[in-house]
């Protein structure tokens, strides 16, 4: 459908922007997966930037000049506690979900897990979205949960 000649108001209604993400009305499984893929991606990038900052303390921080055990001990005293480890467990959940769901998306992008598209009929479900890619979504969630349990055992071992 051409949008040529649409008024500014019509264009504004059509462009939901960030609110389009946050409104779950009429979301199907794939739409939720899309939403979580982006939210987890942004969260991982935020952690990654923080991780760049904290690992720099291995060499004395922004003004350091080489490996420094006192600087490393200082940053460890801030982050190596139950709260810091809880953040790492959450990170592992989103990391594994993002990775596993990302593989599903790549396979779908190259058409490897999609069925042939067919004529749209009631109840208007996309025929190309087969069970295979749905199973992969649930597999991604399962992998994330198992990884979280593993991370919890590794990080909280001996903290009690």
């Amino acid at each position, binding site marked *: 459908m051409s949008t040529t000649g649409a008024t500014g108001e019509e264009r504004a209604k059509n*462009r939901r*922007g*960030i609110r389009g993400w946050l409104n779950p009305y009429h979301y199907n499984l794939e739409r939720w997966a899309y939403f979580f893929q*982006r939210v987890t*991606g*942004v969260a*991982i*990038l935020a952690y*990654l*930037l923080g991780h*760049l900052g904290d*690992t*720099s303390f*291995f*060499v*004395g921080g922004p003004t*350091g*000049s*080489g*490996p*420094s*055990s*006192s600087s*490393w*001990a200082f940053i*460890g005293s801030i982050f*190596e506690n139950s709260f810091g480890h809880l953040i790492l467990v959450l990170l*592992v959940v989103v*990391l594994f979900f993002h*990775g596993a769901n*990302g*593989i599903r998306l*790549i396979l779908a*992008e190259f058409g490897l897990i999609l069925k042939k598209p067919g004529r749209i009929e009631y109840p208007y479900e996309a025929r190309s979205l087969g069970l295979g890619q749905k199973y992969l979504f649930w597999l991604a969630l399962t992998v994330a949960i198992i990884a979280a349990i*593993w*991370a919890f055992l*590794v*990080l909280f*071992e*001996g903290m009690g």
Partner: protein
Amino acid sequence: MRESRLMLVQYVTAVLAVVLVSIHLIMQGVLYPYTTAISFSNILSIYRNGLYATFLEALLVVTLVHGFDGVRIILHEWRQTAPWSRWVDIGTILAIVISVGYGTRTVILAVFGGVAA
């Protein structure tokens, strides 16, 4: 670069990131107990091993390119005007250069810097 090529970069870095991050997690949580993995002496020995240092640099570049390109894609989906697209692309390149530069500085200093108490 054409958008289709950039999307391919996103997929290739995604696959590489899955492999590299998996190795990183195995090194941090499987090969050694966690407290040993994050000890100063263990990290120093990792950085001073040329292969591991190269691995960490590759991990740095791949994850940051993938992460910032992902944000670029989100921002392009959000708004589609020529100035917005141009500034998003410029901002993405700057963010990658600055963050990779800062991370590379850590790797170089850890490998070649003098060890202090």
